[in-house]
């Protein structure tokens, strides 16, 4: 199948990245993935993040340009001091510009995407004055709550423009956090199993993430001051090839590395943050669509 056809077509490798990232963004200091820091028993934390994800540099004649703007809402709940539950729901607005039969066309779609639910358990915790080390495995499921058969005047939209995948997918991993009053390091290893829906199966995704946050400034207040952190993150992401009706798509999947500088302002009740994910390695298969950048801006709050 030609990826520029109006029917269901292959997903650019890059479009799966934000989906995976969203499922692990709920609380804590890293901007592009999770942390092992606690959610107090019986308490809620929330996060709202605006994500602008732009892809282009299409090596194929379709000359695709894809832009997605998503508002991602995440909610965390402390079941106990060790167990926390999270839910993540994106609202997605997607535009895909491409050349089809000699004409430039735009395929667009918007709506709520797939809901992710996951649990995290603090398996190791070593606390000292002003510092902590924690290791927390997590596992979850992505339910196909988003519409995956939207159409426009040209017919059914390609998978890269659908807001839902149509499949039940599973993911898990482990996150490590080392936090002091001056700096924080987080590392995460995760894997996502993507399943088939309507003949299409996105490739599984493995990723390794690292985040270093350094305190640049603190308010003069005694007790619980405000902190300003400079953030640098690295995301190594590998995706297997997609499968269409049982056959591997040679123009999908591959390996990418993102370097993500960011900034965070942290108070007792809320956190303001922003970051730009810049691809520094894109070793993708065939004509898989490369990513230009991902911009993230968000707020988290305790309530």
């Amino acid at each position, binding site marked *: 199948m030609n990826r520029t056809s109006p029917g269901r077509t292959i997903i650019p490798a890059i479009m799966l990245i934000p989906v995976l990232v969203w499922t692990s963004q709920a609380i804590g200091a890293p901007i592009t993935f999770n942390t092992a*820091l*606690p959610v107090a028993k019986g308490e809620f934390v929330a996060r709202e993040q605006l994500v602008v994800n732009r892809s282009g540099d299409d090596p194929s004649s379709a000359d695709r340009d894809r832009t997605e703007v998503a508002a991602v809402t995440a909610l965390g709940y402390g079941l106990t*001091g060790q167990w926390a539950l999270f839910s993540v729901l994106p609202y997605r607005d997607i535009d895909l510009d491409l050349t089809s039969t000699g004409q430039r066309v735009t395929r667009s779609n918007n709506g709520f995407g797939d809901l992710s639910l996951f649990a995290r358990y603090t398996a190791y*915790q070593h606390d000292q004055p002003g510092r902590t080390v924690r290791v927390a495995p997590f596992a979850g499921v992505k339910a196909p709550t988003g519409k995956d058969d939207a159409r426009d005047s040209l017919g059914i939209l390609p998978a890269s423009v659908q807001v839902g995948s149509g499949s039940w997918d599973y993911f898990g991993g482990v996150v490590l956090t080392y936090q002091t*009053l001056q700096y924080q390091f987080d590392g995460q290893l995760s894997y996502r199993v993507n399943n088939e829906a309507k003949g299409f199966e996105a490739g599984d995704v493995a990723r390794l993430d690292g985040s270093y946050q350094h305190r640049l400034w603190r308010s003069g207040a*005694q007790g*619980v*001051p405000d902190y300003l952190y400079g953030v640098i993150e690295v995301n190594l992401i590998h995706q297997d090839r997609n499968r269409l009706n049982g056959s591997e798509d040679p123009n999908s999947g591959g390996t990418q590395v993102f370097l993500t500088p960011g900034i965070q302002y942290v108070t007792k009740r809320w956190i303001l943050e922003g970051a730009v994910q810049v691809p520094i390695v894109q070793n993708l298969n065939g004509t898989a669509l490369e990513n230009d950048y991902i911009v993230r801006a968000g707020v988290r709050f305790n309530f």
Partner: protein
Amino acid sequence: MKRYLIVPLLLLWSLAALAAGTQYVMRVDGLACPYCAYGIEKKLKQIEGVENIDVDLDKGLVTVNVREGVELTEPQMDQLFKDAGFTYRSMTKHTL
């Protein structure tokens, strides 16, 4: 005249002293960010009689003032900080 003023003032002072509360200063490990401190404050505020809470991140100390007659116990604080995701170490108690 002065004598008439001093007597009620002394009486008021002694009543205030009798109604004095207690200050608990607790050492809590693992506290390293402002955002995490809020969960502790919320948990402590749920205790009847807690009047003031001060978290000092730099020193890893949580200071709680309670009104007279209210007592915080070690097992209670151990569980409270465990539920908040931190490690309670010790406390000292002072009458206000």
